[in-house]
């Protein structure tokens, strides 16, 4: 059971990551390919403060969030003039630069050796040491995060973000300071990614640069796209599916590197099929959620031949 609990902790962390990435990609329309860097910045700051400086867990986490959010703004300022795929490449570049710093700034990060022995979280004298204790903590933090993100998205502020995704020029013509909104969206998304990173660091108790690669970003993007851009529920579903989906491979007798690669193959094939057949993901942005989930599975059944008649298309 401990293994399932471990998976659920990871799922909680990935839910925060995909929901936060969805603010940037799905709601504001900025294709950010550097999300793993924000994840990593949160993890590194929080881990170093807790372990080296000896700060309390809660303080370390807060600094991790602030650090990641600041990084989001710093990356945003020069990149926001760029559009679409150029923005994507620039954020990817920034992500890799940050990883190069993690790898090479050995006096602080210990480079490829990583940081071992990160203390487990401690709150009001209670130490979340075991997996199930940590599960409780991460689920609570995840629920608070999702609630906050939901609140931010479903507000006049969130409406402006969506208008930027739809048409920047029209948004400008209505007097919206789109640079400010984009920077805020980046800061919020990066901040929550930093929170996830800090959770991850204090859970695994070891971090090194290999955790925060571009592949990790691709995984997060897959979760967002699978769930549906601009759908918070979708991000949650996407994160759960992609955390659990590759797990059965573990029980097949294969060498470790093949397992890891097979996992990547599952993600990538899922993503390609999704783009080809249903680019809006399981849930696009639509109030009619229940029907949409139902339609998705009906449609899937029809596509793979389990159903003879094509399900009625929803508007």
């Amino acid at each position, binding site marked *: 059971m401990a293994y399932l609990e471990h998976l659920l902790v990871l799922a909680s962390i990935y839910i925060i990551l995909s929901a936060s990435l969805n603010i940037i990609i799905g709601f504001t329309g900025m294709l950010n390919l550097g999300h793993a860097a924000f994840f990593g910045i949160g993890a590194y700051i929080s881990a170093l403060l807790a372990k080296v400086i000896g700060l309390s867990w809660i303080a370390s986490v807060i600094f991790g969030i602030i650090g990641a959010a600041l990084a989001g703004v710093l990356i945003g300022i020069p990149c926001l003039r760029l559009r679409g795929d150029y923005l994507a490449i620039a954020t990817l570049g920034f992500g890799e630069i940050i990883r190069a710093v993690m790898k090479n700034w050995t006096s602080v990060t210990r480079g490829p050796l990583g940081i071992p022995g990160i203390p487990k979280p401690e709150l009001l004298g209670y130490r979340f040491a075991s997996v199930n204790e940590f599960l409780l903590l991460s689920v609570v933090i995840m629920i608070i995060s999702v609630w*906050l993100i939901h*609140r931010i998205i479903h507000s*006049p502020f*969130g409406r402006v973000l969506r208008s930027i995704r*739809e*048409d920047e020029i029209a948004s400008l*013509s209505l007097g919206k300071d789109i640079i400010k909104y984009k920077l805020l969206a980046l800061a919020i998304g990066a901040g929550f990614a930093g929170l996830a990173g800090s959770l991850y660091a204090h859970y695994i108790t070891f971090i090194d640069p290999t955790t925060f690669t571009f592949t990790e970003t691709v995984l997060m993007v897959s979760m967002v796209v699978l769930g549906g851009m601009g759908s918070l529920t979708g991000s949650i579903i996407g994160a759960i599916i992609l955390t659990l989906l590759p797990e059965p491979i573990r029980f097949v007798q294969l060498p470790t590197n093949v397992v890891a690669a097979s996992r990547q193959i599952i993600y990538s094939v899922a993503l390609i099929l999704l783009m080809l057949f249903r680019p809006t993901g399981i849930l696009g*942005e639509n109030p009619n959620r229940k029907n949409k989930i139902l339609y998705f599975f009906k449609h899937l059944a029809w596509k793979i031949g389990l159903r003879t008649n094509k399900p009625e298309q929803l508007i």
Partner: protein
Amino acid sequence: MKPLLEIEHLNKSFGGIKAVNSCSFIVPHGKIVGLIGPNGAGKTTVFNLVTGFLSSDSGKIKLDGVSLVGMSPDRIARMGISRTFQMIRLFPHMTVIDNMMLAIKNEREGLFDAVFRIPPLSTEEKHNEERCMEMLEYVGLETKKHEKAKNLSYGQQKLLEIARALIADPEILLLDEPAAGVNLTMLKKIGDLLKKLRSQGKTILIIEHNMEFIMNLCDTVVVLDYGQEIAVGAPHQVRKNKKVLDAYLGNIDVKIVT
């Protein structure tokens, strides 16, 4: 009384081609001014310069005596200039009501209000929504409230774009070809709407190719050719102007549809 919008010796070149060439004209309070001219005369460029989407090479643009030169488009919009676009620019995947709610003046679009909501947002949202609904009723789109903007007909989208520009309660409304591509019923509807707005004291600057529409509607017509105003005056005066006739190859009474 000072004119609401003043444009003086405005210049803009694109790679050596003068799109706007020392152009000057004014838009007085409470009037409808038509901006006409052959294709490529620089009309839309003037709009883009006034609204800050392009920066001018030189010249003055003043709204109520305040210079707009160098301001960002969003700031100019907040100063009280609303516009529509030649190619409709709605938020296609958002509902009609959301399109409207984005345009209405709202002090609570910040992040702080999204998170803390002190005092609650709901009363204000409800009030704004009621005002938006009034405007939608005014243009006859109230039944489309929850429809996505992309699902409206072309004419309805044009109306929605005008309604969206209006709900911002602008000092001046800039309309870029509101009559292009709409049917006669819709055309009349738009014309009536604009006249009604004028009677309420609104100021409108309008680009249009449909001469009949312009001549019936406008108080003043500014004719642009090669980026420069070649005639300014009441519709019946401009109609007889030699330069204007030349610019249009003597075909001013023929409806020019693009």
